[in-house]
């Protein structure tokens, strides 16, 4: 209690101390960056889920082969959710002697709950609508062309005559990997009346719900427990695995940037606390001499740091929320429009404040705790303070705090590990480099000119401070280079994974005989990058000769999963976006069947190279030996398979083909003719998915730029804190040297040498650490394998930083060099 009083009294004057201000500013920054990023990320996550929701038309869907029991809708209403029903089925439409198979969606008046159904009405204007009224139908352009109709005319479906009141421009579910014929939307009531949904129809029935996330989660749990046998849940998260990769990366990327910024702040906090502790050494000795307990001395110091820290953290929460709110309102590139409506989440900002306080605790504890070992004798003689090793173990605390922080924030020990290893590697390398440098200096200083000797031997004399300074600056620079150079480069590599000619259409159900014709026809409409892969549909029936039904799987789900249909393909060369992680790719002349699996399968079914897998395709049984394990990059929009067979044996199986190609958007209409010429084919449009994936990269990039701006400030704080660490000693030395007659230019040259060496060591370390760390991050965390560090840029930035360190250090000594020595000596 008394220590708190002493702390508060001290603060009245000490809040002006540069180290306390740096500490508060660093903490403020850390909380602002972490808070704003976390708030943005939470909001973005929500936006992304909402985005996906617009793909399925609701926040959650229950999909069933027959209409769901009424309890499903009733329970949703009880939870305050909105509901909508729709059914999807293929149906042939007729008009003026022509016919066309349509993919029909029959929705109630509420459909869709999320996302947009946009139609152009007969006057040509676009409108946001719900499913049409009884007696009306919306169709897409391809259907109009196929049937030779225009908006306003009528067609027959299921014995009803419906008037075309709109041309579909955009529709939820467009990204579904379901066979897509030309589309039509009509009212659910019409479909029911015409008997299109009766038993025996191929209709799938869906109940959509939408509402607050909590209610949706509650409904999800309830529905899971009450699902009929033929039904399953469709969630936005699982709609698209391709996007899932992008979402996960986006989250990791943002958190990584936020964390690096926070770590920078942590370093500044550590330096400030160190300096504060050094300043207070004399006072602690005095308090001890006057009879204060060591707990009292520690308590009052800890309290003095805690007060500005808590205030800074609270201010940080406010600023973070304000910034996030501002970003939501003004930074349009940052968030999709849908997300801007949602309320500001408060949790992440306060969590960031907690993390900030943890950073302070972790980074400031060691130097403060060390003060407890200051002997009272130090009131008479500073040298009485012996370097106590007792508190060295405490320096593990900031490391653990940092590591815990990393893991907690990213939810990934891998990312945390990679970052921590890179940073501690950088620290170790710096220490080594500095020690070697200092040893060389001690050895050869005598041969240097007087000014040089003065400068470099100053570093050697203050070995402890020199080590802390180089480490702090090197780590700070590493974090900055990672943020400013490596991160944008990673983003660029990520963007390049989806180049402009990324396949945006898939065609399935191609017969072998049609292949050449189809390729020609597509080429004729302007498609490029045609790539066809064979597909055989089968089942996994045995593992190492044991029936899947009897295989010892861990859990019932796995058995069900194993019993599902699998799509098998084969290829002579390893397909793009695939990497062999173990084993060898097929020999061209394999005598016995061989199989290559994606790593996900290996993990799921606990398989090993050399295992034999039995597949049943039609009535053909094939037993293949596992000879390679692949890692498939699912974020690429290529045709990819979990299971690949060797081509010699695969080709003997009954199969069709799946192809992907790129078609410029403006040419999409040309596919209407194509689908009429090849009515048995199904075309899948993935343009919307591609857009989303690209949008995510853009949003992440925009957010990362914000973080970078803050990180630069944090970096400047680290630099300032590190450079001023030795200010007191330097001032004293300079004054003495001046008194002894040293010339100004000599002092300046000495300072230049000192800081030049410091900058060089830090720059070199940062260059290597950020490049290696970046490569490691790219490969093992982001799985961006095409990444190479931009050496030239890195080197340039590292060099510039080294020069900046030297220049700033020199600028900091200018005042000292100018001041009359007596004044300087007096001040100590």
């Amino acid at each position, binding site marked *: 209690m*008394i220590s708190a*009083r*002493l702390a508060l*009294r*001290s*603060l*009245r*004057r*000490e809040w002006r101390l540069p180290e306390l201000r740096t500490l508060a500013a660093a903490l403020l920054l850390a909380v602002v960056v972490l808070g704003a990023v976390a708030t943005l990320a939470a909001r973005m996550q929500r936006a992304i889920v909402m985005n996906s929701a617009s793909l399925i038309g609701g926040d959650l869907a229950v999909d069933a082969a027959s209409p769901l029991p009424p309890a499903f809708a009733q329970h949703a209403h009880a939870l305050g959710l909105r509901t909508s029903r729709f059914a999807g089925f293929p149906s042939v439409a007729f008009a003026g002697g022509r016919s066309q198979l349509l993919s029909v969606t029959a929705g109630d008046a509420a459909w869709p709950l999320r996302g947009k159904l946009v139609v152009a009405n007969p006057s040509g204007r676009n409108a946001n609508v719900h499913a049409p009224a009884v007696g009306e139908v919306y169709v897409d352009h391809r259907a109009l062309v196929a049937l030779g109709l225009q908006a306003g005319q009528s067609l027959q479906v299921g014995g009803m005559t419906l008037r075309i009141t709109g041309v579909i421009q955009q529709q939820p579910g467009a990204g579904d990997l379901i066979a897509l014929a030309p589309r039509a939307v009509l009212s659910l009531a019409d479909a029911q009346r015409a008997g299109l949904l009766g038993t025996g129809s191929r209709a799938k029935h869906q109940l959509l719900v939408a509402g607050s996330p909590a209610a949706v989660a509650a409904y999800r749990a309830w529905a899971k427990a009450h699902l009929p046998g033929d039904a399953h849940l469709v969630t936005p998260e699982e709609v698209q695995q391709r996007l899932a990769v992008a979402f996960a990366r986006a989250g990791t990327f943002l958190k990584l940037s936020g964390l690096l910024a926070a770590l920078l702040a942590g370093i500044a906090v550590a330096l400030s606390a160190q300096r504060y502790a050094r300043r207070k050494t*004399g*006072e602690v000795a*005095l*308090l*001890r*001499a*006057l*009879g*204060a*307990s*060591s707990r*009292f001395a520690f308590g009052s110091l800890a309290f003095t740091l805690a007060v500005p820290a808590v205030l800074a953290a609270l201010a940080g929460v406010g600023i973070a929320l304000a910034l996030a709110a501002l970003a939501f309102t003004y930074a349009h590139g940052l968030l999709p429009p849908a997300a801007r409506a949602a309320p500001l989440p408060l949790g992440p900002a306060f969590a960031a404040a907690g993390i900030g306080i943890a950073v302070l605790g972790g980074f400031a504890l060691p130097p403060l705790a060390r003060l407890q070992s200051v*002997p*009272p*004798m130090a*009131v*008479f*003689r500073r040298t*009485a303070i012996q370097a106590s090793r007792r508190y060295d173990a405490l320096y593990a605390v900031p490391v653990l705090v940092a590591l815990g922080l990393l893991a907690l924030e990213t939810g990934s020990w891998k990312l945390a590990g990679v970052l921590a290893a890179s940073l501690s590697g950088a620290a170790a390398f710096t220490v080594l480099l500095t020690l070697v440098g200092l040893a060389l200096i001690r050895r050869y200083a005598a041969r240097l000119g007087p000014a040089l000797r003065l400068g470099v031997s100053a570093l050697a004399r203050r070995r402890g401070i020199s080590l802390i300074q180089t480490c702090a600056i090197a780590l700070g620079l590493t974090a900055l280079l990672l943020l400013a150079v490596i991160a944008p480069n990673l983003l660029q590599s990520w963007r390049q994974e989806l180049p402009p000619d990324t396949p945006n259409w898939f065609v399935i159900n191609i017969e072998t005989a049609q292949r050449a014709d189809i390729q020609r026809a597509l080429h004729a409409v302007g498609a490029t990058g045609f790539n066809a892969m064979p597909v055989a549909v089968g089942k996994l029936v045995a593992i190492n000769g044991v029936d899947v039904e009897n295989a010892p799987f861990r859990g019932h789900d796995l058995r069900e999963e194993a019993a599902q249909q699998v799509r098998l393909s084969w290829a002579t060369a390893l397909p793009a976006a695939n990497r062999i992680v173990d084993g060898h790719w097929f020999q061209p002349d394999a005598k016995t069947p061989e199989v290559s699996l994606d790593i996900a399968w290996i993990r799921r079914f606990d398989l090993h190279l050399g295992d034999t897998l039995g597949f049943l395709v039609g009535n053909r049984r094939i037993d293949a030996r596992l000879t390679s394990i692949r890692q498939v990059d699912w974020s690429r929009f290529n045709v990819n398979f979990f299971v690949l067979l060797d081509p010699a044996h695969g080709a003997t199986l009954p199969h069709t083909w799946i192809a992907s190609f790129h078609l410029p958007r403006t040419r999409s209409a040309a596919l209407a003719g194509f689908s009429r010429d090849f009515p048995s084919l199904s075309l899948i449009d993935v343009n919307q998915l591609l857009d989303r994936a690209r949008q995510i990269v853009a949003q992440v990039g925009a957010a990362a730029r914000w973080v970078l701006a803050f990180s630069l400030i944090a970096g400047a704080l680290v630099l300032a804190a590190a450079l001023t660490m030795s200010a007191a000693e330097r001032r004293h030395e300079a004054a003495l040297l001046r008194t002894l007659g040293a010339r100004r230019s000599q002092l300046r040259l000495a300072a230049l040498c000192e800081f030049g060496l410091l900058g060089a060591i830090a720059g070199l370390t940062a260059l290597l650490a950020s490049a290696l760390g970046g490569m490691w991050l790219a490969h093992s965390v982001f799985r961006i394998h095409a990444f190479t560090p931009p050496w030239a840029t890195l080197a340039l930035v590292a060099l510039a930083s080294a020069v900046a360190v030297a220049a700033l250090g020199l600028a900091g000594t200018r005042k000292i060099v100018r001041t009359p020595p007596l004044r300087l000596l007096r001040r100590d």
Partner: protein
Amino acid sequence: MDDSDRANMALISATGVSRHVEGPAGRLDILDDVSLEVNAGETVAITGASGSGKTTLLALLAGLDLPSSGSVRLDGHALDALDEEARARLRLRLVGFVFQSFHLLPALTAEENVLLPLELDGAAAPLARARAALASVGLAARGAHFPYQMSGGEQQRVAIARAFVHQPRILFADEPTGNLDHHTRDAIADLLFRLNREHATTLVLVTHDPVLARRCGRIFDLVDGRAVAHTA
């Protein structure tokens, strides 16, 4: 030991005290077999050339440091038998300090500096006592001022008020006038001795000023870490 024993023995007693440190050029003997007894109410000056070990001896007597050999008893407590925390409690109860370079806490006002020992001790009515102490050194009006707003002499007066405020039985002073000019020096010395008389405090004073030393009841002279004379 009980209180009657304690009353009969010297308030401070040092027997065969030596202090050495390991330096780069081998062992350095700072104090060599020094013995000294100070009774309650006595005033003792420790004199000697610079580097003769005065400060070291003072620190050992006050329990700020421990001797390499020999023992020090303060009010009957063997200091080497206590740990650092216990010695701190003993100092808080028994001892006041005045230093050559004042050693006021720069972030606290004069009044708060004087309050410090009282608050550390949890004494009653601290504010009134602190103000009285400040008044007794003639600084009643400067309570709200910070050390940097005061002259050296004023700072030392605040330090003296702080040393006496909790009525310690012993006052240790290391060159209390060393950083001050002639006039101030005399004024500070007068103040110190006056308060010492008023509070009947035992005074151990380190100085190489012979005039100041002669104002004490006894002079203990050190040459190269050894006691050479006991002038009464």
